């Protein structure tokens, strides 16, 4: 090696990659081997995945449903909220921003306990999936608001809106034609974060779930605790297959939106 610095850099990168990849590959293989304790000699199979699907497909669909509902709710609340905050900067806005960010600092368990204390007696609500949704919205909303707010703060929103107004656009038109398209990179980045966090959220959901409402990560914990290792690993594999393309797709979308506004 001509350049020792480069060599060091390469080794550290490869080591770090290996540190992350080896357990992943091992876990994936565990979900695909007939018998993990006998190793690969026992042969490869997709059976464990079908078993997981039979046992936990309702968890997977529940998680997807909650993640999408959570995205819709955070979009409906978060984008106008970020817009209002961007248009009215001041002490009150700062205080509000801190306030909605509180769920980031409070452990999910505490948040869940508070929700249970407050709404636990409303049986219909307590037993419905919307109860978990409320927890997820509380937890993910600050990510959406902050992400949109940071983009809106970077553009001269006031003058753009004044421009649109002078051309005859009323407040609603300005929001749809000017605010939303220019906030798009922030909205996409926020959406990416919200969906990923909602699908992966465990500790708050674990407190709020009922035996009939297990989300994907709660089901994962359940399978780790009570199923054989191959099933648990196959479950992890399904989780990977779901979340990785989602992450890639949304990252691509957000990079593309970022280019438009530059």
């Amino acid at each position: 090696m001509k350049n020792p610095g480069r060599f060091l850099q390469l080794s550290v990168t490869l080591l770090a990659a290996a540190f992350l990849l080896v357990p992943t590959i091992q876990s994936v293989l565990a979900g695909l081997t007939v018998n993990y304790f006998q190793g690969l000699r026992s042969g490869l199979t997709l059976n464990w995945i079908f078993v997981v699907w039979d046992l936990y497909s309702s968890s997977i669909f529940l998680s997807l449903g909650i993640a999408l509902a959570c995205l819709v709710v955070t979009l409906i609340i978060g984008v106008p909220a970020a817009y209002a905050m961007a248009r009215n900067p001041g002490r009150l806005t700062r205080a509000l921003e801190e306030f909605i960010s509180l769920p980031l600092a409070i452990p999910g368990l505490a948040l869940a306990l508070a929700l249970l204390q407050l709404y636990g007696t409303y049986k219909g609500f307590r037993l419905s999936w919307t109860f978990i949704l409320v927890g997820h919205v509380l937890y993910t909303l600050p990510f959406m608001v902050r992400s949109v707010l940071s983009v809106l703060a970077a553009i001269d929103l006031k003058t753009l809106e004044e421009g649109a107004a002078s051309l005859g656009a009323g407040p609603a038109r300005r929001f749809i034609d000017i605010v939303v398209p220019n906030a798009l990179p922030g909205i996409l980045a926020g959406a990416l974060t919200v969906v990923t966090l909602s699908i992966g959220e465990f500790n708050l959901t674990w407190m709020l779930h009922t035996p009939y409402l297990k989300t994907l990560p709660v089901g994962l914990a359940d399978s780790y605790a009570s199923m054989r290792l191959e099933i648990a690993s196959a479950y992890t594999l399904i989780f990977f297959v779901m979340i990785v393309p989602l992450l890639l797709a949304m990252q691509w979308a957000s990079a593309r939106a970022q280019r438009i506004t530059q």
Partner: protein
Amino acid sequence: MTLTLRNIAKTFPGGARALMPTDLDISEGEIVSLLGPSGCGKTTLLRIIAGLETADPGAQIRFKGEDMGALPVERRKVGMVFQSYALFPNMSVRSNIGYGLKMQSLPRDQIDARVDEVIALCRLEPYAGRAITALSGGQRQRVALARAFAPRPRLLLLDEPLSALDAALRGALRDELAALLRQFGITAIFVTHDQDEAMAIADRVAVMSQGRVAQIGTPEALYRAPENAFVARFVGNALPLGGLIEDGRLHLPGGVLTLAGHSNGKAAFVRAEDVKIVADGPLAATVETVTFLGTHYRIGLRGATHETLFCLHQGVSAPKPGETVRLAIAPQSILTLDPEKAAA
């Protein structure tokens, strides 16, 4: 009058008065410039006309007799060119220009026809399909103008439309803007802090100072017959001569000048281009500095007045620093105005 403004004042929350009660009349097709230093209230006045700012109670904005004051900005039908242009980065040049027409809910083919027309008028054909981010400053300025003009506003308002451009481009675009506005034949008000810009573009200039219109008139009138010291200083950089006026004569340290009128109790001002170096002039002065500016020399002179007096000297050579020269100022070139109360 097309546009009649009465008693327009603006007090900001906290009590700062940005604009004293102001009246202004603008006739059809006229291009009026609001000229003044920063903080003089010119942009506030423009934004009140646009509807982007609310005037203090008692204000009246009438357009051909119709009260505009109560209308929100989106219903005033005024075109506005912003200092930063405020072009929509999420739309192409065409969509930016067509946005105002789209807001009028015109049919698609009418919008296209009008956009094509305005694009041709502003010579933007090569850029029509481009993204806003792919345009230079000068091109953006033209797109902003085209966008404001496309919906056929009854009034075009321009807020420092050239100040975001670099100096070399500004001169060329100034003449282009003046020509385009004339071609549009539209009533326009534009705000600037640059007297050359105001003079080159406007039919009439309203010079503003500390929230008031100090004088309004044609560029020639403002230059030749300023009504007060502020206008004399701001338009054409007249310098105070100091000294004492007595019965039509101005007594200065370097000699005595004859005035055109009686002018007791007034103060005398002169522009550098009216100070002439002549062999038999009534004033004596010592050359302090000589700056060569191509078309002329700018000469700083000491001794004639209390402060340094400047003279624009045309000729193939200039006196050297330290030399003594004699100066003459024609009586009609000396502006006699009410003395300034306090330094503005």
